[in-house]
């Protein structure tokens, strides 16, 4: 089993956090993992993306040229990275912010209105957790308990009040 994932959006959407949380969860679940962020001079407001590889044997290459999963959190990410999905792979589209449709027909497109759902739950900033939950449940290779462990670690201390909300957001969407 090897799952290559690519998360993309804009700075401030919590893209890196999504990638890191699924990486941690997979590690807690005894998988081999790598997490590779894009890095560059634009500190804020630019594009943000990261690559996550989860495998049951050591990861040879942390780079992704054909992704099993691409997550597009905004429109520029969709147009730029739609082509990265390998035939038969999954493309998650944040339809709250993306009003265009993907052009590919050889892939599975999964619509998640992440920002709308988060707003309904009372905190628009939880959109990334809604999307992460959708991705996690769709690929199904990492146990929920491992996610809960990283959820508790991430939302602790000063952020402890956000735990319940984010937990709920993580479980809001279940797709196959």
């Amino acid at each position: 089993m090897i799952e290559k994932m690519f998360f993309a959006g804009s700075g401030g959407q919590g893209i890196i956090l999504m990638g890191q949380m699924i990486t941690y969860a997979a590690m807690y679940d005894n998988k081999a993992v790598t997490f590779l962020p894009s890095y560059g001079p634009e500190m804020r407001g630019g594009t943000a993306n990261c690559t996550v590889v989860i495998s049951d044997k050591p990861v040879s290459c942390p780079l992704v040229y054909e992704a099993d999963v691409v997550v597009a959190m905004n429109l520029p990410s969709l147009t730029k990275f739609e082509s990265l999905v390998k035939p038969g792979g999954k493309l998650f589209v944040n339809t709250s912010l993306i009003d265009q449709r993907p052009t590919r027909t050889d892939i599975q497109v999964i619509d998640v209105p992440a920002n709308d759902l988060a707003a309904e739950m009372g905190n628009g900033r939880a959109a990334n957790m809604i999307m992460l939950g959708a991705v996690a449940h769709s690929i199904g290779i990492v146990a929920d308990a491992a996610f809960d462990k990283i959820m508790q670690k991430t939302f602790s201390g000063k952020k402890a009040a956000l735990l319940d909300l984010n937990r709920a957001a993580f479980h809001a969407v279940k797709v196959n």
Partner: protein
Amino acid sequence: MAEKVLMKGNEAFAEAAMRGGCRFYFGYPITPQSEIPEYMSRELPKRGGVFVQAESELGAINMTYGAGAAGGSVFISSSSPGIALMQEGMSFLCSAEVPAVILNVSRCGPGIGGIQPGQADYFQATRGGGNGDYHMPVFAPCNMQEAVDIIYEAPALADKWRTPVMILADGMMGQMMEPVALPDPKPFVEPEEIPANKPWAITGYAKKPGGARAVVKSLRMQPEALEEHVERLFARYDAAKAELTRYECIGLEDAELVFVAYGTIARLTLEVIEMLAEQGIKAGLIRPISLWPFPYEAFDQIGKRTKVVVSAELSMGQLIEDVYRGVNGRLPVELIHRTGGIIPTSIEVAQKAKAILEGLK
């Protein structure tokens, strides 16, 4: 084995250096390694160590020289242009036989170049980037655990062989996260212990066993004295080679094509080898872990079926110079490369490898 933790490369490098006994860090911010001075500024003082943000890379390497000459265990880091600026100091460290651990989280050049990973500092690292005749051990790990293990070991190697030791990583390794098992921390050496441990160090001679005055220097005005000194350095290099030469060979016995690659690109090559195997092509890998001394002996393990040796690198053909020496005319040598900044896809490398094999028919 300790429980694995997920760490960003740069932070894991810094942690490994501290655990290996490095008490001093002198740094200057430069992408893609700035997390290292940040991490050190938080962590070292907590553990009784010293962090100084230097005025420049020149300042940093010379602080390293001073602290190392005074017997301290020093770790420093920078990235390609900063490492270039440090070369004057490295030549000094090598000539004056001052130990230190130097990490290059390299990017691509020349000039300011770009901040993406590259391997074009190979000559600078392995040929001695500063003036004069000298070498320093250079290690190029290809994953986080290997990097942590070698950085942890490096201070002891530096002390043993009285030389700076360089770790050549790249921006991708510095920025990515991967689980690592961190080795147990070694205690820091106290200043009072140094005169006995390192009698050559400039600690003041009052408390030194024997009370001999120490001078750390590199100037030798008499050419005969200089020659004797340089020959002594090189005799030590020869003595150190057996311990320092490190490499990994994968699938050489029946490989039609043998890649030679280090660091990030070696990791990618592992995926290429799997891809080629799916297409019925046997490929192998010689992965130098020490770039200096270079593991020329690894090439003796190349089997009878091999038709070509390919240097895969993120530079215009630097590693290939050592591949030629290793192959020594026995087989054709080819180059698969990008300039750095652009990491070739494994698909691209696999296609080029196939084209090379077909070209031989």
